[in-house]
């Protein structure tokens, strides 16, 4: 059994104006330590999909098994514990603005019940890993976008996750900063064998770090395979559109996926 198993995942948003099917019978599996990309145009359901993986969004049906645990069958308490194993980083970083960088990294340790002193010592080591130890006492508002994402990465590492969900994590960053963040993610993947799910509309991101990729269109996975293979010989129209208009899609900046 793979480390992450998604079976028949469905998500329907109900509204007075009619139901919207955001995800339709989505199936895939990810091996431990893999970096798995999910690409698609805006509105394809990428964000909904990744947010279902830690139940920020409640699926309407299907099964989500991560590390042998079936998420939809957990109690609230079990789910909170499971979430510590499933980290997430966001397009807009989502740091606590009233806390220092160090205290942001301490936050998951507080949740885990680590003593303050111990938490600080540990937090510093994570900040060192993302190259921001010198900013420990700064506030997020004083940092650049790339630095904020590094803090978010240090924070998520502090909860020692086995999975990292990246929801458009580089979409708000310039190309150069994107490169450095991708490199950092790659390092983390190799060092801790953290399984990663990378949601993006930037093809170059997928090309650079993903082992495998799935193409999402109108809430369905229309194509998936090894990144190289999909990029070299896309079979479906959706994949061709995404890959052949790569240059175009990169100049597009996508709005908030939240």
């Amino acid at each position, binding site marked *: 059994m793979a480390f992450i198993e998604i079976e028949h995942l469905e998500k329907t948003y109900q509204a007075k104006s009619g139901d919207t099917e955001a995800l339709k019978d989505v199936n895939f599996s990810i091996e431990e330590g893999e970096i798995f990309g999910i690409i698609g145009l805006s509105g394809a359901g990428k964000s909904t999909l990744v947010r279902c993986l830690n139940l920020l969004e409640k699926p309407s049906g299907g099964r989500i098994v991560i590390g042998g645990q079936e998420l939809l069958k957990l109690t609230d308490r079990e789910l909170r514990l499971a979430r*510590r194993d499933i980290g997430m980083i*966001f397009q807009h970083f*989502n740091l*606590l603005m009233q806390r220092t960088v160090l205290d942001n990294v301490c936050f998951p340790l507080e*949740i885990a019940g680590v003593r303050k002193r111990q938490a600080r010592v540990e937090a510093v080591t994570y900040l060192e890993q993302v190259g921001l130890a010198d900013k420990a006492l700064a506030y997020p*508002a004083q940092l650049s976008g790339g630095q904020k994402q590094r803090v*978010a990465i240090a924070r998520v590492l502090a909860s020692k996750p086995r999975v990292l*969900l990246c929801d458009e994590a580089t979409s708000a960053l310039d190309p150069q900063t994107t490169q450095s963040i991708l490199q950092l993610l790659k390092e983390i993947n190799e060092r801790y064998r953290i399984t990663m799910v990378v949601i993006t509309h930037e093809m170059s991101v997928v090309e650079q770090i993903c082992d495998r990729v799935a193409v999402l269109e109108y809430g369905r996975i229309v194509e998936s395979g090894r990144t190289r293979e999909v990029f070299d010989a896309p079979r479906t129209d959706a994949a061709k559109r995404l890959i052949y208009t790569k240059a175009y899609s990169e100049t597009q900046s996508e709005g908030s996926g939240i």
Partner: protein
Amino acid sequence: MSWDTETIKMLLEGVRDTLYMVLFSTLFGYLLGLPLGVLLAVSDRDGIRPRPVLYRILDIIVNILRSVPFLILLILVIPLTRLLVGKSYGSTATIVPLTIAAAPFIARMVESSLKEVDRGVIEAAVSLGAGIRTIIFQVLIGEARTSLLVGVTISLGTILGYSAMAGVVGGGGLGDIAIRYGYYRYETGIMIVTVVVLVALVQILQAIGMMLAKFLDRRRV
């Protein structure tokens, strides 16, 4: 009436009584209003634990309490005041209606402050496995702290205004002096001085509150 030491003493006592009423009413108001505001923010449709029925009930209660004119409330709660304080006039007694008027007002202020907190930050906390208590105290209250402090400042000012109104029924403090001397005895001088002192008090409280809020805000460089 001449401006002798008696008058000055009376005014100083008025200031003392007013501050006593306002500070304690605000304190008690927050003891009731803060949890109520948290409950409102948390149970609303897009809150972290949506409970539409509970929200609706609290919402209506708060609205009803807020729409009762303070002067009427002052009289309506006299039996309760007697029960709690033993008498229905004077500064201590006035704290009871002031608290009852302040709590729903404060609850609304708290609710709106907490609703300003970025959804993304709350989601990040949820994704890290934070429980509801952590989210309320560390994320909602922690992140909204400057806004909450501005709320305290506004509440102090509003309650100060209410406290002056309580002078009509012998509530004590500056409002009481303004009514007794200025209104009943036509001593306009004293009335004006009292009003000026009230204005000064609001200004001072406002300035201190805003300074603190700014000092504690880390969102700007």
